[in-house]
C-alpha cells in the first residue's frame, strides 16, 4: 500500500469514529491531527460522556489535566483517553467555574487510576471531584497554603516570605528579582 493510500485509510478510520462518537455524544467531535480527536462538553455530562467513550473502546485513561484559565475565570479539565482497539486518542474537555470548582468523579469507570489522577488535580488546583472518597494530600507534606499550581499563586513571593529575610545581608540577594 502506498503512503498516500495509507494516509487516506487512516483519516477514513478517524472520520468513522468521529461520526459514531458525534452521534452518541450529540456534540461535534473534532480531529486535531492524525490519531488525535477532541470534544468539548458540559461539566454535568462528564460521566455519561466518559462512559460512552469507554464503551466505544477508549478504555485507557492516560491522564486528567487541569488548566487554570484565570482571565476567563474557569478551569479546563481534560480527560485524555486512549483506545487500544482504534489506536486513537480522545480528549474530552470541559470547563468549570473557578469560584466553585466542582465536578463529578469518574472513579466508577477507572476506579483507582481515576481516583489517583483526581487526587493529584485536587491537590494542585483545588478542584473537588464529587464521588471520589479519597482526595487526601498526595505529594505535598503539611501544605496549608492555596493550591500551588493555580496561576494566582506566586511562588517567588511565597518563598521569599517563608524562607528568606530581607534584612539579612546574606539573603537579600533573593529579593533582587522583585526589585
Amino acid at each position: 500500500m502506498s503512503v498516500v493510500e495509507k494516509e487516506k485509510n487512516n483519516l477514513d478510520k478517524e472520520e468513522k469514529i468521529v461520526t459514531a462518537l458525534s452521534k452518541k455524544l450529540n456534540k461535534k467531535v473534532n480531529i486535531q491531527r492524525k490519531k488525535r480527536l477532541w470534544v468539548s462538553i458540559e461539566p454535568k455530562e462528564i460521566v455519561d460522556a466518559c462512559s460512552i467513550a469507554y464503551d466505544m473502546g477508549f478504555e485507557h485513561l492516560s491522564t486528567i489535566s487541569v488548566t487554570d484559565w484565570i482571565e476567563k475565570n474557569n478551569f479546563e479539565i481534560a480527560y485524555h483517553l486512549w483506545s487500544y482497539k482504534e489506536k486513537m486518542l480522545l480528549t474530552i474537555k470541559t470547563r468549570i467555574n473557578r469560584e466553585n470548582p466542582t465536578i463529578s468523579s469518574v472513579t466508577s469507570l477507572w476506579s483507582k487510576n481515576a481516583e489517583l489522577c483526581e487526587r493529584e488535580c485536587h491537590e494542585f488546583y483545588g478542584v473537588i471531584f464529587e464521588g471520589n472518597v479519597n482526595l487526601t494530600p498526595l505529594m505535598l507534606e503539611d501544605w496549608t497554603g492555596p493550591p500551588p499550581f493555580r496561576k494566582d499563586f506566586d511562588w517567588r513571593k511565597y518563598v521569599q516570605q517563608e524562607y528568606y529575610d530581607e534584612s539579612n545581608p546574606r539573603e537579600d540577594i533573593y529579593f533582587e528579582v522583585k526589585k
Partner: protein
Amino acid sequence: MTEIEERQGDFEMYFGPAHPGSGNFSVRVQLRGERVMKAVVDPGYLHRGFEKLMEYREPMQNSVLSDRICVLEPLQWNLLHAEAVDTLMGYDIPERAKYIRVILAELSRIQSHFIWYAVMSMGTGFTTGFNVAMGYRDYMLDVFDYITGGRLYPAGYICPGGVRKDLPEKAEKKILTLFEKIDYMHKFAKKENPVWLERFKEVGVLTKEEAIKLGATGPILRASGVASDVRRDDPYEIYDELEFEIPVFDEGDAYSRYLIAMQEIEESKKIVKQAIDRMPKGEVKTSNMKPIVHFRKAKGETYTRNELSRGEGAIYMIATGKKTPYRVKIRGPSFTHMIPILKHLLTDSYYADVPAIYWSLNQCPADVDR
C-alpha cells in the same frame, strides 16, 4: 479499598524511603504475621514541581529541565519534550536528526533495562546481578558522554528542532563495539537462574483486565497480555519504518515482566543497528530555527506520547503566544504503576515478596513525583 480492621498483633512497617533498595519512595505495609494486609504508598520525596517550573521557562531551558524528570532515562524525556515543542512550532525535523534521536532513545532504553535488572537483583539479594549490570551500564554511559557530553544528563542534547550537535566522529563504530561489550551482561542476565525463578515466578500477578483498568502501560501491560506499544500504535520519529517485535507474555507475573525486559533489550539493539545502517547524511537541526525557539509563534495545544522504558510517557502542552508555555502537564509511566498497581499487588502478598513485586514494576520515583 475497604479499611481492614486492626487486630492485636498486627504491626506496621515501612518499606523505604531509607531501605537500601527502595529509592526515594516509601510504602507503609500493615502486616499480620508474614502477610501484607494493607499497603499505603507515600510518594512526594522527589516532588520538584516541573509542571509549574516549565511555565516560567522558555522551551530551550525546559529542554534541559526535562532531563531531570526521570534520572534513569533522561534522553527519552528529552525526546518527549522536544517532540511536544516541535509539534506546536510545526518544525520539520531533518531525517538525520530523527535517526540520531531514535538511536539515543533506544540506547537509553537498554541502559534503563540494565538498571531494572540490577535493582531486581538487589531487591532479591542477588548482589552479583546488581554489580554486573551496573558495571556494564557504565560502558553505555561512556558512549553517552562521548555523544552528548554528559554521562547521565545530556543537558538537552535532544532539543526542539533536532539535536544539538551531529554525532561525533566514529560514534557509530563506538556504539557497535559497545554492543559487543555488553553482550556478556545480556547473556548473563538471560540465563535461567533458580533463585530468580523461585522469587519471581507467580509473584505479583496482574491480570489483563486489572492492568487496563488500573492504567498499566509499557512492559507491565505487555507482561499482562496486551500487545500495546506507542512506537507501533502511535508512531513517532522513524519508528514506523523500522522492523522490530513487541514481546508479549500472558502470565502477568514478576517473572514475565523480567522476560519482557530481556527481550526488549534485544529489540532495541535491532532498532539501533537498523538506524545506524540507514542513517542519511545531512543537517541535524531544522532550518527555520534560529538559535532559540520563537515560542511566541506557537499557538494551540498538543498531547504528545512516547514509549519510554517504563511505559507511556506524555506531555500535554498549551501555548498561548507567550515566550513560555501556558501549561505543561507531564504524565510519568510510574505514576500509575507505583500507586494503584503496587497497592493492588502488595495487598495479600507476603512481606518477603515486597521487594520482588516493587522492583518488577520498574519504577522511577522521580517520574511519579515530577
